[in-house]
């Protein structure tokens, strides 16, 4: 015989303003099975919880219903209190009479009757609750970090410094990512390379970090604490153990005119190359598409000149399997290529701005390479077309960003600040030059950010024009920029030598494919989705996978580094225990009814369903049934909805419980 205790919360006045809580308590007290019911001003407060615990002991209660706010808010609180009083926490249910009742109704009488119904339903449900034991799964205390930009580097270093092994996987031949491409960084104008390269070296030298560059994620299996990751290590054609990084191969390579992606294709590299001199690892890679040996079978100069004999044309792609307990995704961003419309994308191009057609219309990242001391021009701002110094330069902001008509509605967040920085770098290098900026708004929240922007106008003489550009065209060796100044209400025409477009920050290409391998969700732009925008910003909805940096949304460096450290802290929280405790709300198969059609297996998004053989004592196979791996099951209930014979049910949400609730109405 159950002795159910019902505890009605006033929630200050949130509930009691609309619901007659005392009447609910007295009415529900008459409900069959209810042994005790009471109300209290703040049930979640310390005295409220004490009242609950005391009642459980004094009244010998067996099941508890707390009628208060949403279970998302305080279910954990009350289950903990119930557990402290000696009951299994899953014998406690919450009736939501705030969000589902008092907040959405005005009529006190009707709201009170509804509250009685809601509580009555939960009383009937809790009668069918079972004791659920906590599920524990082991934790592999190694982590995988995908992406070797500043986000991945920071997360890897933080985790490794705590003494746990990290597998860092980078798609490109070197770690460093976009930050390594930048010249100076806002708001302090310190050299990006100067602050970045020491961290890259730290990664290379860290005994706890295993670095796989020129590698990609092939397959992810398993679940929180127990992932198996298959990594494809692409053939570098250079033996990393033998190579000393002397660079002779690169100086001798006859293919010298290959556009270098790291330099935004304005600088050139050889076929055997490191993307930039400070690359980590400092081991070259052969670009097989452009290498004479791979194209014609002749040449092989690099192999001949290599002292240690590291060049290996026969090297093949390798698959490596690593076991990890947590995954940090830090795949970063890409700039929207505005010249052309991506195939099949709802996002439209900016063909009218001549990017890709007019050589001196460049994007922000190309300007970074021009301004960088280690860039193709040695840090001099020169036009890609004729190498002349531009005396009039126009920066146009919000190219793609905040342009709903072009398909992107979000703000790329970093462009206001980097354009301000660009005007400064330009002014420092071209003293007699003039920078103009076309902008919609200047968005400069952040420590020392607005001061930085003001400085570009007040000290560095950038002219800001509020308005958009309608058209760009080449006229002789000038680019005519036609726009409007909406502050003054006039048309503006500037004959510029160079135009820099602040193009939208987009997720990396292939972000969606990686998300599908990982089983994490992403938005329509393919930015990865966090579990909760405010309260769980670095966790994915898929347990054990965390997000860092611009793969989740546009971010600047300080924010990226903070998020990377936050993700590392989350990984450390996971690794702080040997076994992982998880909520036992998982599906369970009623084997006697299971006919082994595996409809559940086909719909399970988490791969939690396995095939289990049932044998008699002689070992003869009786049948094959479904088995739910409790470590993997996310408790979504899709299997339960799919099973034709209702032979798999979600603990805590069984059909019996749901039907009992409906029948209570």
């Amino acid at each position, binding site marked *: 015989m159950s002795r159910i205790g019902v505890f009605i919360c006033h929630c200050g006045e949130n509930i009691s303003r609309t619901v007659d809580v005392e009447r609910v308590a007295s009415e529900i007290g008459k409900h069959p099975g209810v042994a005790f019911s009471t109300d209290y001003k703040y049930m979640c407060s310390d005295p409220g919880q004490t009242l609950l615990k005391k009642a459980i002991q004094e009244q010998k209660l067996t099941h508890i219903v707390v009628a208060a706010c949403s279970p998302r808010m305080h279910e954990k609180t009350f289950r903990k209190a119930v557990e402290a009083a000696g009951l299994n926490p899953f014998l406690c249910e919450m009736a939501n009479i705030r969000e589902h009742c008092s907040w959405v109704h005005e009529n006190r009488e009707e709201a009170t009757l509804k509250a009685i119904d809601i509580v009555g339903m939960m009383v009937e449900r809790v009668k069918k609750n079972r004791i659920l034991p906590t599920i524990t799964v082991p934790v592999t205390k190694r982590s995988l970090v995908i992406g070797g930009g500043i986000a991945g580097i920071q997360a890897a270093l933080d985790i490794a410094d705590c003494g746990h092994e990290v597998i860092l996987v980078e798609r490109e031949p070197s770690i460093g990512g976009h930050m390594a491409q930048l010249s100076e960084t806002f708001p302090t104008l310190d050299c990006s390379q100067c602050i970045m390269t020491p961290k890259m070296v730290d990664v290379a030298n860290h005994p706890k970090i295993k670095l796989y560059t020129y590698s990609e994620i092939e397959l992810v299996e398993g679940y929180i604490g127990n992932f198996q990751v298959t990594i494809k290590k692409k053939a570098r054609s250079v033996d990393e153990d033998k190579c000393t990084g002397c660079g002779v191969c690169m100086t001798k390579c006859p293919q010298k005119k290959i556009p270098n992606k790291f330099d935004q294709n304005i600088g050139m590299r050889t076929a055997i190359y490191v993307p930039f001199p400070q690359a980590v690892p400092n081991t070259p890679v052969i670009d097989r598409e452009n290498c004479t040996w791979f194209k014609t079978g002749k040449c092989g100069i690099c192999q001949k000149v290599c002292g240690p004999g590291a060049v290996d044309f026969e090297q093949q792609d390798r698959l490596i399997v690593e076991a990890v307990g947590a995954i940090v995704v830090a795949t970063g961003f890409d700039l929207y290529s505005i010249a052309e419309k991506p195939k099949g994308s709802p996002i439209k191009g900016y063909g009218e701005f001549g990017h890709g057609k007019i050589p001196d219309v460049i994007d922000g990242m190309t300007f970074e390479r021009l301004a960088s001391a280690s860039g193709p021009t040695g840090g001099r701002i020169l036009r890609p077309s004729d190498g002349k110094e531009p005396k009039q330069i126009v920066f146009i902001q919000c190219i793609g960003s905040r342009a709903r008509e072009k398909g992107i509605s979000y703000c790329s967040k970093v462009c206001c600040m980097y354009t301000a920085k660009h005007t400064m770098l330009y002014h420092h290098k071209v003293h007699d030059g003039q920078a103009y900026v076309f902008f919609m708004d200047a968005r400069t929240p952040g420590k020392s950010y607005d001061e930085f922007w003001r400085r570009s106008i007040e000290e560095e003489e950038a002219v800001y024009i509020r308005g958009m550009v309608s058209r760009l065209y080449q006229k002789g060796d000038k680019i005519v920029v036609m726009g409007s100044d909406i502050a003054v209400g006039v048309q503006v025409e500037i004959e510029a030598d160079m135009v820099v477009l602040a193009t939208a920050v987009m997720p990396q290409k292939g972000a969606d494919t990686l998300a599908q391998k990982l089983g994490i969700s992403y938005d329509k732009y393919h930015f990865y989705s966090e579990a909760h925008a405010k309260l769980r910003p670095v966790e994915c909805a898929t347990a054990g996978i965390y997000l860092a940096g611009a793969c989740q949304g546009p971010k600047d460096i300080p924010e990226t580094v903070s998020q990377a450290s936050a993700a590392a802290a989350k990984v450390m929280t996971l690794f702080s225990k040997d076994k992982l405790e998880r909520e036992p709300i998982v599906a369970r198969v009623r084997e006697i*009814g299971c*006919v*082994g059609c595996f*409809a559940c297996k*086909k719909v399970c998004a988490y791969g939690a369903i396995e095939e289990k053989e049932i044998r008699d004592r002689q070992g003869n196979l009786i049948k*094959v049934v479904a088995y739910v791996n409790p470590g993997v099951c996310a408790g979504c209930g899709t299997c339960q909805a799919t099973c034709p*014979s209702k*032979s798999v049910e979600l603990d805590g949400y069984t059909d*019996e419980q749901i*039907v009992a609730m409906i029948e209570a109405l």
Partner: protein
Amino acid sequence: MNIHVLDKSIYTAVTEAIRSEATRLLTAGDVTVIVGYAAARRKGSAQPIVITSSADADKLIFTPACVNNLAVYLTKAKKEIPKGGKIGIVVKGCDLKALVGLMGESQLKREELYLIGVPCVGVLASTVQPATELTAETIASKCRECDAHLPSGCDLLPNVVLPPMPQLEGKYSAEIARLEALPPAERWAFWKEQFAKCIKCYACRQVCPFCFCEQCLCDRNKPQMVDTTPRPAGNTAWHIVRAMHLAGRCAGCAECERVCPMDIPLNLLNRKMAKELKELFDYEAGFEVNEKGPLSTYTEKDDQSFIK
């Protein structure tokens, strides 16, 4: 007036082929049993038979009276055929679709079966005497709209040439079109009347190869999902469950309709569901094993117009 008579002359050759293959298989021990058809007591009638000895091979026949879908004997819920070796089975095109469906749902393995395919002109409607001539009038409704006269992927397919088949007007498609044109209230009234006839004998469930659950949801009482007594609400619930559970699976053998003692047009409901599945997901029951049915798969191409 033999313009309506259908040419079923190939059935003699088909019967011969079945018999000789059965003899060979059972003698060689390639299969332990063969499920097929044999003559029954009434003139011209046929019934399912399970033989285990080559001496019985001559009992096997194929005639227009061989209406049963034998796939049902291989399902767990019905457990008629004991496991223990390869099973030989005589299959018409429509029956093969059912077997293929069962393979896709992990109920059967192809390598455990020896399929003796039947080139089929058609079988008789259950409403006529078994000795009746097979004509455009006496042919079963399902055969009028058949797209599977010649099964494929069988281990044996008798080498006969199908006679030219007359184009017969589809009764199901015509009835579906008529019902679709009705206002919802009248359509509902039609089905309410049909379901009211149900006596909950569950013959439709027992004969259906896809009702292979060992414990049917409708037999469970914790909680009681479907009312057990033959009353309107429970009847409707049962028929909705049946139609929904068959959507994207039904092979169209129409056995449910044949065995219904109350003449509820069950296959009409199944055909309507099949039509929806074809329109929404371009899915049709066929001869290829599908690991994932249309209703347990999500693709970005799925119709989402229902999301308002």
